[in-house]
């Protein structure tokens, strides 16, 4: 079975463009400040790291529900590390996700299993060649805790 997703881009300035996503959102994008762009622009590098972070986020919520985790909170920092080669080509060698996960009346092992399943079923995580490293902080609250 195959499916597809589309986006469209159009030049709107010297170092910027307009992005239209197949699901509806539209936004301006440009080069990062360090690559002749400006601060405040949404960049392809932001999009790449965000794609991983948001996909893992959504898949984790799905898996947590399936595993009946009593999820109190989820937040996650993602950081993509870029290597610049001798010929000036670049790649994201690895992306580190640092999710902070709070559950109630659970155990850490179940959260870690949920994260393993999440990584396995995340479309974006499965599609990138960069290594994906998840460094979770898991907080288990007792019964009746906030």
């Amino acid at each position: 079975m195959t499916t597809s997703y589309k986006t469209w881009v159009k030049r709107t300035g010297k170092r910027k463009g307009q992005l239209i996503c197949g699901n509806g959102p539209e936004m301006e994008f440009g080069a990062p400040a360090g690559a002749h762009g400006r601060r405040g622009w949404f960049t392809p590098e932001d999009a790449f790291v965000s794609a991983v972070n948001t996909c893992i986020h959504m898949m984790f919520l799905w898996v947590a529900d399936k595993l009946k985790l009593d999820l109190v909170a989820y937040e996650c920092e993602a950081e993509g590390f870029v290597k610049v080669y001798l010929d000036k080509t670049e790649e994201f060698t690895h992306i580190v996700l640092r999710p902070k996960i709070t559950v109630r009346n659970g155990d850490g092992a179940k959260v870690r299993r949920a994260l393993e399943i999440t990584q396995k079923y995340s479309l974006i995580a499965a599609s990138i060649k960069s290594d994906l490293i998840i460094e979770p902080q898991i907080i288990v609250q007792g019964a009746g805790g906030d």
Partner: protein
Amino acid sequence: MKAEEFFELQFEKFRLRVPKGYWYAGYDTWVKVEGEEGLVGVTDFFQTKLGDIAYVTPVEAVRLEQDDVLATIESVKAAVDITVPASGEVITFNKALDDHPELISEDPYGDGWLARLRLTDWEVDQEMLLSSDAYFRLMQDKVARELERA
């Protein structure tokens, strides 16, 4: 499991095994007869299609006829009723699955068994089941259909 003890089909990144000496229902469950008892579970093909398993919920019935629902398996992607390949009285469900449902994926023909039954109509039930080589051919057809759908 030694190589001569099972049939195997490689499909994409998966190696799907069908052990010899078990009996199979066309809907991808198996029964391994041990004297008057039968151990039942789901096949490697079935668990692979299902994906990672979140929960197994056995039925409360103690006596089941062939094709009755034995349990519901909920995976990350789907929830399905599992029907029993042979009639019998439930001796026990696999308690280990309560905390470790992933055993079904890791060892579908061993530690991932679903229930142990006291077989009540084996000679009749057996006529509706497939030998390992017959089920292996059926599984090959199912895999071919999956490929056509891809």
